[in-house]
């Protein structure tokens, strides 16, 4: 026991049990078969180490490799890609790399906020939110034409960045009683969700669903209460 704890792991990941951003890093490390230690953070009581390793944003995930820290999940993904070259997540072609980065960013800046907006609404407001979210999702549906994954034949950078759609989005739909990614409207995206979620590395590493449902139920209740009366 003592020897094991004295031998510091080369790679450490600071995360929470549920963070969809940290999950990207778990998937990437496992896809590349990189050994690492996990440090779970309580965001209401952040450890001194986390604050030391990510002083600018004070957030998870943070990757520490040989004592040096990298923050921001998409930046971490690129670092992992450049450091451990097996099972590449990005194509060698600069244009395809740019496309993967574009869709990852689109997911974070447009898709997620629009679904989150719909999630935190009800009635007519939610209906309008769902319409907006679907407008964004149409681009992803289009992008999947002729492909198994956003990365082509194999899981790639964009799949990992958008991976929360494959499971967490289902949780959002259940908790908020809404349907956003319907099979008939989004056949390719629906199929991608199943294929991605079924991949062994992904399947083994989802946070417990019932815990997620409870957590997001609480979020939604609080957010609905906080909304100013119309």
């Amino acid at each position, binding site marked *: 026991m003592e020897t094991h704890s004295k031998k510091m792991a080369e790679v450490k990941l600071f995360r929470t049990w549920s963070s969809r951003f940290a999950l990207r890093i778990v998937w990437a490390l496992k896809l590349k078969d990189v050994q690492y230690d996990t440090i779970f953070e309580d965001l209401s009581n952040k450890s001194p180490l986390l604050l030391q390793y990510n002083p*600018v944003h004070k957030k998870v995930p943070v990757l520490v490799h040989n004592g040096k820290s*990298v923050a921001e999940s998409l930046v971490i993904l690129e670092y992992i890609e450049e450091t451990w070259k097996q099972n590449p997540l990005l194509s060698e072609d600069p*244009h395809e790399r740019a496309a993967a980065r574009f869709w990852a960013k689109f997911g974070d800046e447009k898709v997620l906020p629009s679904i989150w907006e719909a999630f935190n609404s009800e009635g007519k407001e939610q209906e309008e939110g769902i319409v907006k979210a679907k407008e964004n999702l149409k681009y992803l549906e289009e992008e999947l034409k002729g492909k198994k994954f956003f990365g082509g034949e194999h899981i790639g950078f964009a799949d990992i960045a958008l991976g929360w759609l494959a499971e967490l989005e289902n949780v959002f739909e259940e908790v908020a009683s809404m349907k956003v990614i319907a099979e008939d409207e989004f056949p390719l995206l629906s199929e991608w969700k199943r294929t991605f979620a079924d991949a062994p590395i992904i399947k083994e590493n989802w946070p417990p669903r019932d815990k997620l449902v409870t957590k997001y139920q609480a979020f939604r209740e609080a957010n609905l209460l906080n909304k100013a009366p119309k």
Partner: protein
Amino acid sequence: MADEVVLLDFWPSPFGMRLRIALAEKGIKHEYKEEDLKNKSPLLLKSNPVHKKIPVLIHNGKPVSESLIALQYIDETWNDNAPLLPSDPYLRSQAKFWAEFVDKKVADFGRKVCMTKGEEQEAAKNGLLDCIELLEGELGEKPYFGGETLGFVDVTLVPCYGWLSVYEKFGNFSIEAEHPVFIAWGKRCLQKKSVSKSLPDQQKLYDFVVQLRKRHEIE
């Protein structure tokens, strides 16, 4: 086969400026196309159907959108001179981290300083000053964020330096007084032809914002 490079841009855009500088640094011949954002060209709408925004880099007919993504594309494609990113993965990650920081925070605060008033403007001014302080810490003793030469972070940030006097005028504050290191860095960058020819005239920028504020009824 000759490379065909087109840049769809809008002269005051700090995001477009980044690409102008990178293309100039690497000596990449290209066609500059000025977009009228009130009347976007079919080429722009076709090249960036998702966001319909500039800048867009079109290389041999294939478009790349989002300025930081296009910067990386430029660096990866024309990798034989003036590298913007270092070769070490850790140093690359630090450069990308700070570029994202500039992209998400500095540009937004800057826009709010120009386009809001009252409490929102005050918060933006303070936010901008906080960002500059953090960035000065990151720069340290180095002449550029990229070390001895212009790098990824320098190219991402220097357009905001180009907007500085405009921020100061509309925000009614002096950034220079509190942040001489930042100013010295900006002036150093401006000595490079790639930067000086890519940043617009200060008076022209000021007049542009005056018009923009009028249109948005901010006074």
